[in-house]
């Protein structure tokens, strides 16, 4: 379970990091790191202002 980041779309704003209930996301300069603790809950994908995240089940 995880999310895919479209790196060509992402504006590295960190909003998704702030909403992830399990702290699976980390913003390092201009890229997102995703830990395997992700539960595919989809909250990050919902709030991303540019729609750069896609949940994979």
């Amino acid at each position, binding site marked *: 379970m995880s999310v895919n980041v479209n790196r060509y779309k992402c*504006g590295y704003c960190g*909003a998704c*990091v702030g*909403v*992830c209930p399990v702290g699976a996301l*980390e913003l390092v300069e201009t890229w997102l790191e995703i830990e395997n603790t992700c539960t595919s809950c989809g909250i990050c994908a919902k709030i*991303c202002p540019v729609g750069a995240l896609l949940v994979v089940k």
Partner: protein
Amino acid sequence: MKSRYDVVVVGAGPAGSITAQTCAEGGMDVLLIEKRQEIGDPVRCAEGVGKDALIKHIQPDTRWIAAEVKGSRIIAPDGTRILMSGDAAMKDVGYTLERKVFDRVLAQRAAMAGAEVMVKTRATGLLRNNGRVAGIKAMYMGDVHEIKADIVIGADGVESKIGRWGGIDTTLKPHEIEACVQFLISNFDPGEYSEFYLGEKYSPGGYAWIFPKGGRSANVGIGVLGSKSGNIRAISLLSKFIETYIPQGRIVEIVVGGVPVTGPIKQTVTDGLMLVGDAARQSDPLTGGGITNAMDAGKMAGEVCIKAREKGDFSVRSLKEYEDKWRSTIGKEMSKSLQVKNLLLKLTDEQLNQLAHSLDGVDVSKMELGKLLTVLIKKNPRLLWGLRTLFK
């Protein structure tokens, strides 16, 4: 970098830099770290600040003031305009900043007060001693270092992890964040007022803004409440807004960001740790403005740090003074804003128009927001019943 400081501040935004400066001026040994290689860049902000609130902390300087505005204009869904200007309105607007420069200047002031500053340095965890927070782990240029401190300040913004690592759950729920996109639009004259476009028509659960940025340009953006984002996204709404209202505009910069609109949270301190600014969710839940709240909180946190060192006590007992202070000042305003916001969320566009029309013939131009709301409540008691005790 040393292996021990009195204070380690994580994040060099306005909250972190003011905390670091205050602590350093009080004679403390301070490290301020920022994970980005350039402080303040990329920007995640519409850069509007109130004059009075800013001047409390720093004298305006043309290096980082992009534009000065005369007041604000609120636009109802049917286009009705409410103009607010004069001294009272200046509580909420006044300048549009150039935050790339502003944030760096604040960090430089901390440095000149004696704080050590490290960029490209990311906190990756907390150190503990007998269960209490005792410093951080930080990565600099690929290497992890352990840095001990009497107190850690989490000034790490919307994506804050410091609180969570310290046992304070600051996770934002979807309805507690505004998902925003902004373009710096060139080739048009935005006039001399900051504009706020309210209603579902522009944005579900948020608003659209046009903040003049000087030289025929403006920050034009839209925030959408996270719980309403998904099928509708801020970026597509903004593109539509610009096509409709500023077709001649040219996009010269894109800004993406999330603003916490939680209202005051329950806990912002624990033994050996304090949260300030967006990390403590201290931005205003109605306007999304967080710069000067972050600076106020940074100052309060710094002053409490200095006292804590004099007492030799960095436990919650001593740090609670910070929590009491921010709650009774910026926290009070945030609570009011949250109630207004919650009520606005329930109003339809038709009702918003009705509110705007109820001001026909009233000179609101010299009123501040609180006074304006009082008038609105008087004229629309049924619609705004829930707010009657807030503004008297």
